[in-house]
């Protein structure tokens, strides 16, 4: 995996990330690059999307993310955790370990988990 | 942003009632009002026809006629609120307003009859409305 040359926009950005259990982690919303152009990490989360949108739109999204979600840092996935780079990107950890599930938990805790029938297996 | 809001407001108000500038404008407005109320009266009369042939139940008819009455009433208020620009327009106003009142009253009577469950009486009670409808149609054609 190390040393591959990629067209960022084509192969990496906005791709779906799947964790080691097969669950969706999110999309590659942004990437962290070091001075020599190596990708160091993938960034996931609305804060990262805000950064890419840029301009007024990005600021607006960043603001609302802070309000509704708290925290200003997106989820960071170091590049050495990547195991596959095909039509979607697989990582070697579960999403709980990656910490990418915070929002899901918040929605679950305050709303969906409290409605009867929420835990039953889906159809 | 502000210009956008101003434009939106201008568009919205343009679609509301605006003051008549000429006799022709007023006549057109009167014609449209007559046409709209004719539509409501015709709807109610079709409902009465359905009742006569035992093809519609009470609850449905009561909704149908009540909507027609509400529409007619609101057209009348809108029309009444427009300033007639001349004496000629005054005469048109008087004639139409009288007719609109007859329409609204007639529809109200039908509504009351339906709500009382007296479906068999609808046909009789609708008779005056038929003449009103004819008159409304004539006016709406004259004034288009």
């Amino acid at each position, binding site marked *: 995996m190390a040393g591959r040359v990629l067209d960022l*926009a084509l192969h990496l*950005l*906005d*791709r*779906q*990330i799947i964790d080691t259990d097969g*669950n*969706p982690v*999110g*999309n590659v*919303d942004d990437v962290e690059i070091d001075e020599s152009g190596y990708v160091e990490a993938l960034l*996931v989360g*609305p804060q990262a*999307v805000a950064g*890419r*949108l840029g301009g007024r*739109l990005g600021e607006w999204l960043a603001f609302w993310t802070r309000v509704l979600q708290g925290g200003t840092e997106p989820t960071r996935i170091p590049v050495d955790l990547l195991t596959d780079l095909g*039509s979607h990107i697989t990582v070697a950890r579960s999403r709980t370990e990656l910490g990418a599930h915070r*929002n*899901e*938990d918040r*929605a*679950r805790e305050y*709303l*969906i*988990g409290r*409605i009867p*029938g*929420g*835990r*039953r*297996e*889906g*159809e | 942003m502000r210009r956008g809001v101003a434009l939106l407001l201008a*568009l919205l108000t343009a*679609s509301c009632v605006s003051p008549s500038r000429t006799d022709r404008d007023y006549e057109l407005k009167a014609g449209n009002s007559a046409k*709209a109320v*004719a*539509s409501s009266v*015709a*709807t109610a*009369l*079709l*409902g009465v*026809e*359905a009742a006569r*042939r*035992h*093809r*519609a*139940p009470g*609850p*449905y008819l*009561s*909704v*149908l006629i009540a*909507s027609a009455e509400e*529409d007619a009433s609101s057209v009348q208020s809108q029309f009444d609120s427009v300033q007639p620009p001349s004496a000629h327009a005054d005469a048109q106003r008087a004639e139409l307003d009288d007719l609109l009142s007859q329409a609204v009253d007639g529809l109200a009577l039908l509504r009351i009859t339906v709500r009382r469950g007296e479906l068999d009486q609808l046909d009789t009670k609708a008779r005056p409305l038929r003449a009103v409808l004819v008159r409304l*149609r004539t006016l709406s054609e004259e004034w*288009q």
Partner: protein
Amino acid sequence: MKRLLQVFLGVLTAIGGFVDIGDLVANALVGARFGMSLAWVVLVGVVGICLFAEMSGRVAAVTGRGTFDLVRERLGVRAGLLNLVASMLVTFLTLAAELGGVALAIELATSVNYLLFVPLVAFLVWFVIWRMPFEHMERAFGLLGLALVVFAVAFWKLGPDWGSMLHQASHPAVPDGEGHPTYWYYAIALFGAAMTPYEVFFFSSGAVEEGWTKKDLMIERINVYLGFPLGGLLSIAIAGCTWLVFMPAGVEVDHLDQVALPVALAAGKVGLAFVIVGFVAATFGAALETGLSTGYSIAQYLGWSWGKSVAPVRAARFHAVVLVAIVLGAMLILTTVDPIMVTEYSIVFSAVALPLTYFPILVVANDPGYMGEAVNSRLTNALGTAYLGLLTVVSLAAIPLMVATKAGQ
């Protein structure tokens, strides 16, 4: 034999599910004012939706992923966001209109003011999404929606002059007393009602939910190519009924109660009962679809887990969005704004959003990277591109015409 039954049920479900409050209102209105002179618009719309529904279903079956997910990946964050926002706004407005439609339909049966039903309807819509299995949900409401076939029966019973009807339909002309701008405004409205964006998202997300693969594509195509055109014919029958009864009487359609009247006159109380059941089924079904679609669109764009096929707590954000959308939609209707007016705006804005929502589908369906051998054929591409041109024209003309005709007056 079992396959045959499946296909048969699938087609029936597609027919019954085709009509929603937008189609009911638009066709009824147009029939009363323009007779059959706008029937061609329904046909053009049906071809369009068949084309794009097949495409999006194929994309979902081959890639196993939903539209918005792929749109963002293929077209980028900004384009994907534009697509998302346009789609969500229009779908939300449509959701509100459908909720209003269900309440109005219940009012027709009970004569109790529709506003009182809105909270109950909203709760039921949410509850069905929460509890009812996806396939059963689709099937049940699609089949119940077939009750609207009574419009075709009523049309036949009203004894149209078939010759003159075919002539009017095949020689479209602006009727006396109507202006050209109004004619084209209603053409656009009718088109927006036939080609609603949410149909396509729902169709493709539903394909993923039900786990379609390439093997299911044949059935999917039959459902689409048979079901949707028959649904379109049903829409035309609605216009036909109001044409025969209301045009000679000078009645303009403003209320849902008027839409049912021709059926009552032609087919009596039994016919009316069918119509009301049909209204409720069609609008309730569409409320389910639009509610789910608001969730699908935002969840797929942001990469959340989504769908009814996982336990709700594992797709908590998706369900939260659906819940909030239904509540907000109900609140909009509870402001006592006229639901028919909300419907009219929703179909016109649908027309405006059409190119934004359909263009990405064409792009993805054409990409061999995603589709492999299942990319669009040349014919599909030619048609798809032609339609995109048409959709752009329609989209640009919609708002100016709305202003010029004061929303069709």
